[in-house]
C-alpha cells in the first residue's frame, strides 16, 4: 500500500477527474445546444424574479461552498501519507476560536440567506396580486382527471387544456379541482406551481411579458393519466386575445352540465377544446360541492351554501 510514488504519479488521478468532468460538461453543452432551459428562459415577471432568486442564492452559497470543497480536497491531497513534506501533528489543538469560527461562518451566511428568503417569499407570494395599471384578468382553473378546465368568468368562455392570456396583463388563476386528486398547476416559463385541490381555491398570480406558446402541466402525480395532463399557455397581444375570445363566444358550443360531467369523467391525453360558458356560477358550484356534505352532489341548501362561502373565504 505504501509503495513510494513520484509526485507526478500521485496527482494523476486528480487530473483525470478534472478532465472527465470537463469532458462531461462539454458533452452536455453540445447536447443542450438550442435546448430550451425553461427556468433560465423566463417569459414573465414572476418566473423572471424566480430565476434571479435561484441564481442569487446559488451564487451566495457557492461563496461558501467553493472554498470549503476546495479546502476539503486540497487537505485530503496535501496531507496524504505518501507526501513526506507535509507536517504531521496529531496533537493539533483546536481552541475556542476554532469553535467560534466554525459556527460563525455558516451562521453569517444563513443570516444573509435568511433575510433574502424572508423578503423574497413575501414579495413573490403567489397569492399576492401583481401591481399594474392594466385591469387584471381572472381565470378559474379546475383540475380534473386528467385535463385542465379553464373558465373565463367575465369573458364567459371556457377551454380545456389550452389557456390564452394577453401580454403584460396581470392574471389571477383561481385553482381548484373536481373529482381529482391533488394536482399541481405549473407553467415553468411564466411562474412557479401551486396545488389545485377539491373544495379549496388557491390563487396564483402571474404576468407574461413575451408572446408565445408555453407548455404547462400537472407537476403532482394524480393517477394514470398524469403524464398526459398537459396544456398550452398562449401569450398574445390584447387585440389577438380579444378576437380569440370573441371567436369562441360566437362559434363554440356551450358548456352544458352534461358536457361538464363528461369532462370530469376520467380520460387521458385530451386535445384542446373550447366552449361558450352557459352558467356563470359553474366554478362556485364546483368548489362548494366539497363543503362537508356526505354525498358528492352540489348542495343548494342555503346554510350549506353560507358555510361553503366562509370556507372559501378562509383560503383566499
Amino acid at each position, binding site marked *: *500500500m505504501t509503495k513510494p510514488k513520484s509526485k507526478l504519479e500521485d496527482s494523476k488521478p486528480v487530473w483525470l477527474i478534472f478532465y472527465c468532468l470537463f469532458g*462531461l460538461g462539454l458533452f452536455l453543452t453540445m*447536447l443542450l445546444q438550442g*435546448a*430550451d*432551459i*425553461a*427556468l433560465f428562459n423566463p417569459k414573465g415577471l414572476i418566473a423572471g424574479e*424566480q*430565476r434571479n*432568486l*435561484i441564481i442569487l*442564492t446559488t451564487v451566495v452559497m457557492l461563496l461558501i*461552498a467553493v472554498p*470549503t*470543497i476546495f479546502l*476539503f480536497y486540497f*487537505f485530503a491531497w496535501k*496531507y*496524504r*501519507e505518501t507526501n513526506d513534506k*507535509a507536517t*504531521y*501533528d*496529531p496533537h*493539533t489543538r*483546536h481552541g475556542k476560536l476554532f*469553535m467560534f469560527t*466554525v459556527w460563525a461562518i455558516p451562521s453569517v*451566511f*444563513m443570516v444573509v440567506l*435568511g433575510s*433574502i*428568503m424572508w423578503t423574497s*417569499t*413575501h414579495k*413573490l*407570494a*403567489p397569492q399576492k396580486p401583481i401591481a399594474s395599471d392594466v385591469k387584471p384578468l381572472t381565470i378559474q382553473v379546475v383540475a380534473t382527471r386528467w385535463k385542465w378546465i379553464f373558465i373565463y368568468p367575465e369573458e364567459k368562455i371556457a377551454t380545456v387544456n389550452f389557456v390564452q392570456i394577453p401580454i403584460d396583463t396581470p392574471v389571477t388563476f383561481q385553482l381548484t379541482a373536481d373529482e381529482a*386528486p*391533488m394536482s*399541481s398547476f405549473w407553467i*415553468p416559463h411564466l*411562474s*412557479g*406551481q401551486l*396545488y389545485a*385541490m*377539491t373544495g379549496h381555491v388557491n390563487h396564483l398570480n402571474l404576468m407574461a411579458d413575451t408572446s408565445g406558446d408555453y*407548455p404547462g402541466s*400537472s*407537476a403532482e*402525480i394524480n393517477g*394514470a393519466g*398524469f*403524464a398526459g395532463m398537459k396544456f398550452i399557455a398562449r401569450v398574445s397581444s390584447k387585440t389577438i386575445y380579444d378576437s380569440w375570445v370573441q371567436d369562441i363566444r360566437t362559434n363554440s358550443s356551450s358548456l352544458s352540465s352534461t358536457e361538464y360531467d363528461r369532462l370530469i369523467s376520467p380520460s387521458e391525453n385530451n386535445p384542446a377544446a373550447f366552449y361558450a360558458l352557459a352558467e356563470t356560477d359553474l366554478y362556485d358550484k364546483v368548489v362548494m360541492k366539497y363543503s*362537508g*356534505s356526505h*354525498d358528492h352532489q352540489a348542495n343548494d341548501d342555503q346554510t350549506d351554501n353560507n358555510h361553503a362561502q366562509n370556507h372559501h373565504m378562509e*383560503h383566499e
Partner: protein
Amino acid sequence: MKEFLLGKLDGHALPHEWFTIGGSVAFVLLGLFVVLVLTRLKRWKWLWNEWLTSVDPKKIGIMYFLAAGFMLVRGGLDAIMIWLQQAISVDGSQGYLSADHFQQVFTAHGNIMVFFVAMGFIFGLINYIVPLQIGARDLASPFLNTLGFWLYIAGILMINMFFLLGGEYAATGWLAVAPLSGPEFSPGVGVDYLIWSLQISGVGTTLGAINFIMTILKMRAPGMTLWKMPLFTWGSLCSMIMAATVFPLLTATLFLLFLDRSFGTHFFTTGGGGDPMMYTNLIWMWGHPEVYILVIPAYGLFGEIVSTFSRKRVASYTANVLGLIGVSVFALSVWLHHFFTMGAGADINSFFGLMTIIIAVPTTVLVFVWIATMYKGRIRFTNPMLWFLGFMGVFATGGISGVMLGFPPADFQLHNSLFLVAHFHSNVIGGVLFGIFAGITYWFPKIAGFKLNQRIGRYAFWCWIAGFCLSFIPMYILGLMGATRRLDHYDSSTGWQPLYVMMLVGGFVIATGVALQIVQIIASAIEKRRLRDTTGDPWDGRSLEWATPSPAPFYNFAAIPQVTSRDAFWEMKKQGLPKPVYEDIVMPKNTAAGIYISILAFLAGFGFVWDIFWLAGLSILGIIICVIVRTFNEHTEYTIPAAEVEKLEEARARATKAADAHKVADTGEDMGLREFIKVVLKWAWDVIRNKRWRTW
C-alpha cells in the same frame, strides 16, 4: 362462503404481466435453490439455531446486511426499469410499460430503497457496531431487537407479494399521498400492500429504536460517559431518538388511511369532511425526519473514518456532537418545506424555509470539523476514506440544491421537478448509501475476519461516482428545463430524450458498480488467508470495537473494558492492554418468538389487504397470545462460567496463532479483475473436468 374464506382474492390476482411472471419465477427459483443447498448440506438445524432464532446483535446485523443487499439489487432493477421506460417512451410510443405499471414501479422503488435498503443497512450497522463501541455484551432488550428484525423481513415479504402472489402495487408515489391513495382514486389492493408493508416494518423500526436508545443510555462500559461515546454511537443515538419520535406518527397516519380504505371513514378523503392536506402534513412530519434518521449515523461514522485514516483525533469532538444534535433537532421542524406549493401564506412558508436553511449551519460545522481533522494528519486513501471523499462532492451538490429548494419562491419552480429528484438522490446516495458503503468497508474486517479487496473496491467506487454524474447531472438539468418527475411519456419536441438516455447509461454504470461490489466480496473471500485480520485492529483504530478480536466472539468482550477517555482503545494501546480478569457472563437465550409474531403480523396484514378478515382477526389474537407467553417466560438468560470463558479465550488465541503461522505473506496489491476472472474460470474448468458436482 368463498368471499368469506378468500376475501377479494381470486385467480385474476395471479401475475400475468411478463415482468411480474419473471419476478415470481426468479424468486421461486432462488428460493428452491436455497432450499436445495440447505437440505443437501443438512444445514436447516444450523440455520435455525445459529441464525434465525439468534438474539446476537452481530448475527442480526449480518442478516440485515444480507436482506438489505438483496433489496438493493431489487430496487436497483426498478430504477433501471424506470429509466428504460423514460428513455424510449417519446411521442406516440408508450414505452414498454403502461402508465399504471410505470407508476407502480417507481412507487416500489422509493419504498424499497428507503425502508428496506437504507433502513436495513443502517440498522445492520447499528446492530453490529454500537454494542461493540460502547463495550456492551448484548442489548437492553435482545427480544425487541429480533422482533424488530423479523418484522422488517415480514415487511420485505409483503412488499414483494404483489408479484409473487399477485394483485398490484400502489401507483401513488412512495408516500401514498391522499386523496390519490384513498378508496376513490385507488380502489385496487396496491395501496393496501404499501400500507401493510410499511406498517409492519415501521412498528419493527419503532421497537428497534426504543431498544437502541435504552442500550446506548444504560449499557455503556464503566467510565464511558455520554461525552466519551464514539461519534457513530452518538449519531445512532440521535437517529434512534428521532425514529422513536416520528415512527409512531407514520403508524398512526397509515392506520387512518387504512380506516379510510377499509372501513369507509373520511379522514383524508375529498368528500365527507375529510382533509387530504392533513395527510400531507402528517406523512411529511414523519417523512422529513426519516431522511435524517438515515443520514445522521452516516455523519457519525464519517467522523470516525476521517479521524482513523488521518491518524488524528477528531478536530473538535464537541462541535461534532453538537452538530449531530443540532441537525436532528432542526430536522423535526422543517416538514412543511415539502409542500410550500400547497398554498400556505408567506409567513408560514418563510418560517419553514428559515428552519430549513438553519439546518445547513450544523451540517456545515460538521464539514469544517472533518476538514480540520484532515489538517496536519497523515491520510491513508483506503476504501472507506475514498467513499468519504466521494461523499463530500456528491453531498455538497445535494446540500446546495437543498438550500435552493428551501427558498419558497424558488421551490415553486423546482418542486415536483426532476431537479428535486436529483437533489434528494444526491443526499440519499451521496450521504446515506456512500456512508453505508464506507461503514461496511471500514468494519468488514471486524464482521468477517478479513479485509475487503481494495483494488476491486476502487473500481466499484469509480463506477458509482461516474454513474452518479452521468445519471444525476442530466437529471438536475432536466428539472431546470421544466421536466416533472414520474413522467411515463413525453414529447420529443421538449428535447429531453438525450438526457433521459444519458441517465439510463449512468444507471448501467452504477449497476456495474454494484456488480463489482459483489465481485469484491467474492474476491476477498478467495484471498481470505492473505487478507485475514488476526490482530482485531486492522486500521489502527481508536474506538472499543477494535479492542475485540475479528470477528468478535458472541459475548463481545471477555472482560468489560474500563474506559477513561475518548478514543478509548487508542489510549489503551498507548498505555498497554490490561490483562483480562475473567468473570461469569450472562447472555440472552435464543428465541423464536420474534419469528412467530412476525409471521402472524404478515398474515394479519395479508388478511387486511385482501379483506380476509377471519385471517386478520385470528392472527392478531395469535400475536397477543405470543406476546403474553413470551412476557411470562422467565428463563431468557443463561450463564457462561468464568472458567468456560477462559477456555474459549485460550482456544481463540491458539486459533489466531495458528492462523498467523499459516498466513500467506502480504504481497502488496490485492487481486485485480483479470486475476479474479482467471481464478473463477480455473475453478469452473476444474469442476467440469473432474466432474466435481457428483460429490455435491
